[in-house]
């Protein structure tokens, strides 16, 4: 009967999204961090690139720093690599304070955005370069290079120069070179930015497999939210030199902590509303654009009458002609305003609310059948419905 009980527990514990099995060191407060930024600030003249930032990253974690350009993510990584010095604050790696240690003595290695391959050396020599700096025995260097070539499937290109390789191959050389020294942490600066979309998606999985195999801590900097969501165990969303939210990809998507995060990751409807009733079971909001209320199981620390935003992803909004779904907690009448047909889905923009205070609500409509008898089209009157747990209340 034991296994049945076990099942019961799993079923009872509702969690948000997929998580790598039994790997959640960030949830136990006693777990020692592998990398720690402690109140780190970096200023370039008047410009503050990183502002009093503290962050803990754990061993074997695949961690992503995500943000737009100029948000400080690259500066943060370069401080860890030693190319920039923090104006104030400390950085620890494996318990060691990194202050004053030059880049060439740090136990981290970096894969550069431009790959930065040495153009005058063959693939082999590029990979062996770091090992030679450590004065390893030639036989060991040979073994290590062979291992890296195998890992990145580059065996047949060992003698080639970088300019004789394609973009994807160069990317793998850069990866092999930075992994050859078995760094305590691998830093990846926009590693897939130069690849085309298809190759990028393939390489993302390859990266994850390599990380699984080597069990090295990976820190990736990217501006591509899909990439961060695909590869990372946890994501730190950055803006203007500060951390906005640090959480698993699913938490960031399903439970963003601010309008910035909700808007930055994926597509979202943000409905301005006021709190009209609150209890432990949930909250009732009145839309500012009048005409509809929102019932949610979320609790909020906002008081009655406070202005909040209700964030709901378009795919959580169902759309139908006529009466819609009478069972749903929320039902809103709308008028189809615009349709973006994307093939797999259509994004339907509907006008909701009253008079000149109306707003647009987007709903995803999955095109599951090729032929539809009565398709939703422009100017249709529709009903938009969603459940009590479909969205989140945001205060800022």
């Amino acid at each position: 009967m034991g296994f049945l009980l076990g099942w019961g527990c799993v079923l009872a514990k509702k969690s948000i999204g997929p998580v790598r099995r039994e790997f959640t060191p960030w949830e136990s407060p006693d777990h020692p961090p592998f990398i720690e930024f402690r109140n780190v600030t970096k200023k370039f003249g008047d410009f503050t690139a990183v502002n009093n930032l503290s962050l803990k990253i754990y061993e074997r974690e695949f961690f992503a720093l995500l943000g737009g350009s100029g948000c400080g993510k690259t500066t943060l990584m370069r401080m860890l690599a030693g190319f920039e010095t923090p104006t104030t604050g400390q950085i620890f790696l494996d318990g060691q304070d990194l202050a004053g240690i030059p880049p060439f003595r740090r136990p981290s290695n970096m894969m550069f955005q431009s790959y930065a391959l040495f153009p005058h050396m063959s693939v082999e020599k590029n990979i062996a370069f770091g090992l030679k700096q450590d004065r390893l025995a030639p036989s060991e260097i040979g073994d290590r290079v062979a291992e890296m070539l195998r890992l990145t499937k580059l065996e047949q290109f060992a003698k080639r120069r970088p300019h004789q390789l394609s973009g994807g191959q160069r990317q793998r050389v850069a990866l092999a070179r930075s992994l050859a020294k078995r760094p305590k942490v691998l830093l990846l600066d926009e590693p897939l930015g130069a690849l085309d979309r298809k190759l990028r998606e393939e390489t993302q999985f390859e990266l994850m497999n390599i990380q699984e195999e080597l069990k090295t801590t990976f820190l990736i900097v990217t501006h591509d939210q899909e990439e961060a969501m695909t590869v990372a165990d946890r994501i730190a969303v950055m803006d203007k030199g500060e951390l906005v939210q640090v959480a698993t990809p699913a938490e960031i998507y399903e439970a963003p902590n601010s309008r910035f995060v909700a808007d930055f990751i994926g597509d979202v409807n943000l409905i301005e509303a006021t709190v009209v009733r609150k209890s432990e079971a949930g909250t009732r909001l009145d839309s500012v654009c009048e005409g509809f209320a929102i019932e949610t199981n979320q609790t909020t620390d906002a008081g009655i009458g406070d202005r909040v935003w209700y964030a709901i992803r378009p795919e959580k909004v169902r759309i139908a002609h006529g009466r819609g779904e009478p069972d749903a907690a929320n039902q809103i009448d709308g008028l189809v305003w615009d349709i973006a047909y994307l093939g797999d889905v259509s994004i339907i923009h509907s006008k909701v609310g009253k008079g000149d205070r109306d707003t647009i609500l987007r709903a995803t409509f999955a095109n599951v059948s090729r032929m539809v008898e009565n398709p939703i089209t422009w100017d249709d009157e529709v009903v938009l419905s969603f459940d009590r747990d479909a969205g989140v209340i945001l205060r800022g």
Partner: protein
Amino acid sequence: MDKPAPVKRTLGGWALIAVPYVWLLIFFLAPFLIVFKISLSQVAVAIPPYVPTFDLAGGWQAFVENLGDLSLENYLWLTEDDLYWKSYLSSVVIAGISTFLTLLIGYPIAYGMARSPQSLRPTLLMLVILPFWTSFLIRVYAWIGILKNEGLLNQLLMAIGIIDEPLVILNTNTAVYIGIVYSYLPFLVLPLYASLERLDGSLLEAAEDLGCPPWKAFWKITLPLSLPGVIAGCFLVFIPAVGEFVIPDLLGGSDTLMIGKTLWTEFFNNRDWPVSSAVAVILLIILVIPIVLFQNQQQKIAEKQA
């Protein structure tokens, strides 16, 4: 994120700066200060042929006494003898005319290069650069044999019957113009070609598409956009041409006045070091204006590209 970081400098970093810096201070800047100082001294029959010589052995006292011996006399002399200001004026005029002629000849060449097929351009570019590598002196010398009274040009012109009497070209200003144009042509063609080559061909197509005939498109589009190249090229010809010595000396006549030649004569023939130093100082002051203008223009281009 892309702002330049204040560079941390190690001892090696400082040494890297110090070595070329000190070299230039000693062998470039200090000599100018000495030239300036000597331009305030008097000529004397001595070695070196001027007083005062600052002898550090005399100590501070002697140094201060010597200071009193400096005077602006040489500069006054430059204004009194009209040879000097006529030389300055004539240098600027000759350089100006030559620059204009170089532009007239250089523009069609640069334009032709920019319009030639892509595969041919590196070769053409090398053909323009090649004369720059061969000796300046030899290139000027080559013209003597051509421009002489009994030279090849006159032989040719008389043989085909255009003229009966040989033209006197060598030892005139015309020969100097030819020499300067010939020697400095690559300096003008290169920056001009660079700016013409960058010109986006679709701009001309757009102009024609909007109803502008090709010749007009040249005036309205190509020429204005190549202006930075024209200006850079003209400066690169004009500035060195003003102080030119070899060309007026070998190709010019006794009445060709150019300041480089005057300075040379003053120094080597008259052995008047203080006056030639004063000539050099004034020449430098005259050139500072175009040099600064040129620097500013280059900086603007660099900023635009950044």
